């Protein structure tokens, strides 16, 4: 027990003196696989993605006519996008300890596959995949969406 409380004190000290947990601490996923052109729109800027590119809430991922991409989010959601596809990661929260859970993504165009992750297991009603014509509610599953 003493070891434990000492460790807590050390952890507290480290957290106080290190403010560096900023931007990098809250990425919600990465581009794990890709081919061809993959662009991420973030805050009005378009950036070419590369392998292991970090994704944040609000990012819009676009694959070119020769592009495709595979994404893994922090809660184990696995997304893959065919060519000519556009996907927005509109809302993502995976903080079970604070009871904050949600995942909302929107497919604007193209072909997208979703394999749901832990958020869909812990709070299925808070997972929504939006499309221009309808919204999809998901219960722990593999979902395929095509928007022409």
């Amino acid at each position, binding site marked *: 027990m003493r070891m434990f409380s000492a*460790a807590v004190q050390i952890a507290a000290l480290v957290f106080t003196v290190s403010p560096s947990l900023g931007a990098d601490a809250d990425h919600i996923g990465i581009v794990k*696989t890709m*081919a061809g052109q993959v662009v991420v729109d973030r805050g009005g800027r378009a950036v070419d993605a590369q392998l292991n590119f970090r994704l944040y809430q609000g990012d819009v991922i676009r694959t070119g006519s020769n592009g495709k991409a595979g994404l893994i989010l922090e809660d184990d959601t696995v997304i893959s996008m065919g060519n000519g596809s556009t996907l927005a990661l509109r809302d993502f929260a995976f903080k079970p300890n604070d009871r904050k859970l949600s995942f909302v993504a929107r497919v604007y165009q193209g072909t997208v*596959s979703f394999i749901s992750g832990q958020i869909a297991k812990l709070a299925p009603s808070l997972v929504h995949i939006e*499309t221009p014509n*309808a*919204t999809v509610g998901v219960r722990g*599953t593999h979902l*395929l969406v095509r928007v022409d």
Partner: protein
Amino acid sequence: MSKVAGSILLMLLMTMACSCTKSTLVALAPDPDGKVGSITVTNEAGSVAIDTPYQATTISGEKKRPAPPENLGREALHEIFSEALSIQPASPLHFLLYFDKDTELTPDSARLLADILAAVRERGSVDISVVGHTDTRGSKEYNTELSVCRANAVKDELVRQGVASQSIRTTSHGKENPLIPTADNVDEVRNRRVEVHIR
């Protein structure tokens, strides 16, 4: 061009833009582990539920009711989604580590570290989560602190064995994400764990 003609043209263009409404196809496939979940496709005109694999619904407009589910079959769906599925990353790997007391790993879990390092190398992973969990015995605060300490201990060991520190993030789910759901204040050894997720 007069203002009136201009606004008529604009209205015409807008109508045209609206008339080429996008068609949407939504289909259900089995999970990688073979299980089949369910989906509900909803818009203001109605709702369709699908719980049979390879069934799909088409939605031709936001004010058009989703079509009754139709079985497209595995072949046809894999054809439509071949590009997307061809780039699908392998699902993240999970390792479960257990503790004897405080932040000391059980001998079995200590031996698992080698497998974790091999998996990180094999996947070229630079995105690793080390997530502390507890059982429901004790207060939220106590469990949060304990799971943070355990996650940090595992991270430190991985870094000591050569994993880049910036590739690892530690989080704590305290008692809110149990492996084995229990009532509050229940001792459950399988819930006192650190999960290592390798993406």
